């Protein structure tokens, strides 16, 4: 990916145990170690180890990133209802909203947003392990919003998951990616709808 000056700001949100922070970390690794860009990844979680609301914020840029918090996101990924409700106002006009249809029930959206939905958890369950929902989502993002280059995202993912799960995760990534490409080709990306 060519060096870019402008910052790309991403919020990934869900609950503890879903691999939300790992997903942000993979994105940051992809941008930093494979694409040669700058990236910061910060995380937000409560005192609970599992089940509490959590989010990771990733900023990717061709230049140094002074302020590592995301105030206005270009991409918001929601893998829990609470994450969706809490973070929706942080999505910038013209931003991209992605959610897991198995976990999030959506309401009205800003008409300037592009929206994508994906049953990431169901796809992962079908493949034998719902813990891979985040990797399905990552593959999906590599098609609909490649914040880092798709090859870099795949490479970084393979390096980050436990070695014995590599093949399954590679498949999960592909399933998500195919789904995203399919949506793009069919032109079925959603447009934000105001709540009537």
């Amino acid at each position: 990916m060519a060096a870019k000056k402008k910052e790309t700001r991403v919020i990934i949100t869900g609950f503890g145990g879903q691999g939300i922070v790992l997903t942000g970390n993979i994105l940051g690794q992809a941008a930093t170690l494979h694409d040669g860009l700058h990236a910061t990844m910060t995380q937000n979680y409560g005192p609970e180890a599992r089940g509490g609301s959590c989010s990771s914020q990733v900023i990717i840029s061709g230049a140094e990133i002074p302020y590592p918090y995301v105030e206005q996101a270009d991409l918001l990924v929601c893998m829990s209802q609470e994450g969706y409700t809490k973070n929706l106002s942080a999505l910038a006009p013209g931003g991209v909203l992605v959610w897991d249809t198995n976990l999030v029930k959506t309401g009205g959206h800003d008409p300037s947003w592009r929206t994508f939905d994906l049953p990431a958890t169901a796809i992962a369950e079908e493949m034998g392990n719902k813990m891979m929902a985040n990797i399905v989502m990552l593959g999906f993002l590599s098609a609909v919003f490649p914040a880092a280059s798709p090859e870099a995202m795949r490479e970084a993912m393979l390096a980050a998951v436990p070695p014995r799960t590599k093949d399954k995760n590679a498949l999960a990534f592909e399933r998500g990616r195919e789904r995203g490409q399919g949506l793009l080709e069919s032109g079925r990306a959603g447009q934000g709808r105001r709540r009537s």
Partner: protein
Amino acid sequence: MAGKEVLTGVHFMDGDEACCEGAIAAGCRFFAGYPITPATEVAERMSRRLPQIGGIFIQMEDEIASMAAILGASWGGAKAMTSTSGPGFSLMMENIGLGVCTETPCVVANVQRAGPSTGLPTLVGQGDMMQARWGSHGPYEIIALTPSSPQEMFDFTVKAFNLSEQYRVPVFVMADEVVGHMSERVVIPPAERIKVVSRKQPKASPDKYLPYKPDADGVAPMATWGMGYHVHVTGLTHDERGYPVMDASAQEQMIARITGKIKKNAAKIISYDAMFMDDAQVVVVAYGISARSAKGAVAAARAQGQKVGLMKLNTVWPFPEEVIADLAGRVRGLIMPEINQGQVVLELERVAGGRCPVKFIGHPGGTIISPRVILAAAQEMLKEAL
């Protein structure tokens, strides 16, 4: 034992992990600690890494014991450290004083969260800065470094070890939750390009050696246990032999030594980065994570042609008195953002001494300071100054 001592290469790691790698690269082979958010990842990584390279990791019963253990390890000849956050830092204070009094090299990383008490365990604060300076009782001087990125967590931890070895004093790495938990590019250089300093060893024969008699630089060579020297280590006021002496003149001599070695060498210890300071009318003086917010604000001001500069403090203690005093005489105002109710800004005000206005921007913790708030304050100060 099957691990590399220096993980040379490019990494995407968080600040806590980088702190651990910096320590190991500096020669740390002993870690004693008690896990606490947001510093746990330092201990976690140490527990994996130290056994790989022949080092020792001990999870202690609490932070009082952790601090005691690293002092003992240091006297045993190891480079030693612990990591903690506010509540643990409070518990360590008495033994930090023991480390100061016995002139024991060691490093304490405090990944600050918002307090007081257990406060906000997972959220950022910079509220332990005055505690770092004055938290243990009695007169003393201390060294505290303030990293603002995972890269600086690596670099400054190496530096912290070097300073503690050189000046025989506990050195603090005063990080914060965001710097500790943020992942970013960290470049670890080849081992031969990392400067590593180790404590001076005595040249005198055991019958002539005085463990607290300083050289010209104010620092006494340190004989550790097992080297064949007689060493007496006490927190009581002691003479150059290390034996307790209970009077005012021994106290005066000892305090002059433990404060003098830092004060005398302050210019060598102090480190800061200047950005757009030459023609600046308003300078933001900032440290740690708040220096990143300040950098964003200064860049935004410059983009609008406004003469705002940044002085990023890499060491907060000792405080850069001479540079600040000079700066205060040349600018129209100074601004300090901190995630507390105003701590280091008190030093800034004291040293500026009324030569220019000093403005504080802060809040008690839980989030970092937005560059927009700093920019607005700088613009206001530029207007007022006209």
